């Protein structure tokens, strides 16, 4: 108790005595803000739950997600030890859902590693350089933005071949332009502030200014946007899976599962509904978390 109290005081000190303490204190205060937002914590909890479920899928699964047992097909939830029932090939939906979480998280991670990073680089460079660099980069961005997202992704997948990696690539290629727009807009306001002028007057070059001073401020709004977009990304991946252009059978990707269940939806509702609920849950969780992060990361709100 006394050590945790001491730690808390150390973290909340108004006079930090080292770089490390200052950094930890900033993180801790952010965490406190996030924690006071019940809905965001709910989102975080759901996501943590899904990540754990994905990691421990082999331990938690009651059946082999790929094992077909035609005698057991289309069992209702709860029947014969199948928690969520079975699908048209007699596979256990609960186990497939667990393994499907791995795919969803894999997709999310891949997209997060590509789209916002590309967007951040393109946007900040365009915004800071200005002139013809800006015009060129932003017109390219506009071209990508002009296409409907799913259609463009479809075209990419059609050209590159179906599969999760290609679906991710297609989603990333269609997802970065909004990030570039946001990053550019932020850069345009930041680059004319006095603190950027101040560091310029210390003789800092453009690379240093962009990477060390502009990026940290853009990243927060991008993180918020990414978490809010995550739902859309998962839905796009699921949509591609549903159309048969993403994950291929027998992979337990949630969108593909809905697609398969579609044929039976009137008589055997659970086959399509249960993966649907999973998609709904993860999308909502990301949205709630994104909303909470907005409160934490917005530097203008820091003065309270």
């Amino acid at each position: 108790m006394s050590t945790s109290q001491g730690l808390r005081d150390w973290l909340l000190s108004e006079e930090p005595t080292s770089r490390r303490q200052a950094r930890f204190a900033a993180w801790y205060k952010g965490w406190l803000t996030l924690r006071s937002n019940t809905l965001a914590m709910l989102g975080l909890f759901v996501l943590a739950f899904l990540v754990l479920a994905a990691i421990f899928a082999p331990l938690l699964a009651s059946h082999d997600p790929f094992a077909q047992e035609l005698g057991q097909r289309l069992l209702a939830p709860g029947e014969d030890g199948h928690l969520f029932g079975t699908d048209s090939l007699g596979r256990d939906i609960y186990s497939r859902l667990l393994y499907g979480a791995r795919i969803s998280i894999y997709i999310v991670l891949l997209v997060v590693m590509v789209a916002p990073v590309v967007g951040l680089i393109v946007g900040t460079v365009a915004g800071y350089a200005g002139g013809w660099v800006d015009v060129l980069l932003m017109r390219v961005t506009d071209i990508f933005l002009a296409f409907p997202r799913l259609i463009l992704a479809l075209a990419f997948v059609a050209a590159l071949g179906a599969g999760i990696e290609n679906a991710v690539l297609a989603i990333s290629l269609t997802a970065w332009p909004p990030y570039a727009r946001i990053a550019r807009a932020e850069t345009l306001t930041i680059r004319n502030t006095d603190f950027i002028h101040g560091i310029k007057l210390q003789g800092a070059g453009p690379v240093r200014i962009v990477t060390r001073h502009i990026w940290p401020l853009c990243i927060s709004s991008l993180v918020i946007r990414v978490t809010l977009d995550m739902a859309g990304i998962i839905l796009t991946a699921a949509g591609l899976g549903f159309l048969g252009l993403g994950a291929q059978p027998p992979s337990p990707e949630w969108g593909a599962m809905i697609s398969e269940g579609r044929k039976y939806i009137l008589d055997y509702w659970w086959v399509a509904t249960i993966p649907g609920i999973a998609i709904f849950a993860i999308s909502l969780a990301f949205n709630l978390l994104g909303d909470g992060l907005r409160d934490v990361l917005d530097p203008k709100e820091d003065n309270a």
Partner: protein
Amino acid sequence: MTDAPLLDVENLWVRFRTRSGVFDAVRGISFTLGKERLGIVGESGSGKSMTGRAVLRLIRPPGMIEADRLDMHGEDILTAPEKRMRKLRGGRVSMIMQDPKFSLNPVMTVGQQMVEALRAHERVSRSEARARALAMLDEVAIRDPERVFTLYPHEVSGGMGQRIMIAMMLLPNPEILIADEPTSALDVSVQLQVLDIIDKLVRDRGMGLMFISHDLNLVAKFCDRIVIMYAGRIVETCKADELRNAQHPYTLGLLNSVPDLEHPREKLEVLKRDPAWREAPSVSARQ
């Protein structure tokens, strides 16, 4: 001064709930406003602007207003319904903010805004509202009211914008005018002009003026009575012409820390803030 003051405030608190507890922006101040010019002076964070807003009940949650008494012309406004408050705001009490750029609607012409503002409070025909608005613009020394009437806010200068704001706020003939730093966004030479206009209008109409400012000298020159606020409390109150006899070290500090062109000093006096000022009970500025 008058029997029933325009504004009667007793033990006013403005509180904000924050993560680290309750923050008191205004801590139990009492004052009255008659048909006079009352200056409220303090540094940023002293609670002077919050006082002005609290009188109009313009404190948004998580802020809370508490008071033993908050009467406007004998009417209790602490418990008045929001609908009644909307009627009072802009009708019997008007407020002028610091920067006209943020108080004028950028997509409406000056004329439209003035007519709308008046018609929100009085049942008058469009043509009558227009005539009164033009007359009012003339009163705030705008030379060509007809032309200004058709301009958009971004087409007028800061000083002109503030005069338009004053005209707009005085249109419904309010009894009380709250001016929150009305001239600090303006150039010095324009400042005086705007102040003169406010002064003349307030005198002519027999209004009560609450003039909120950080500039003690300006307030001393311009107001009848001065209230000096520190950390949410009133530390001193006096007649403006007796300011030179002020006692409180904070007041003296504020007076002496201003660089004076005609009386240069090697070193400016710096306020030494005494923690006791914060704890001293609030002085009542009721009359």
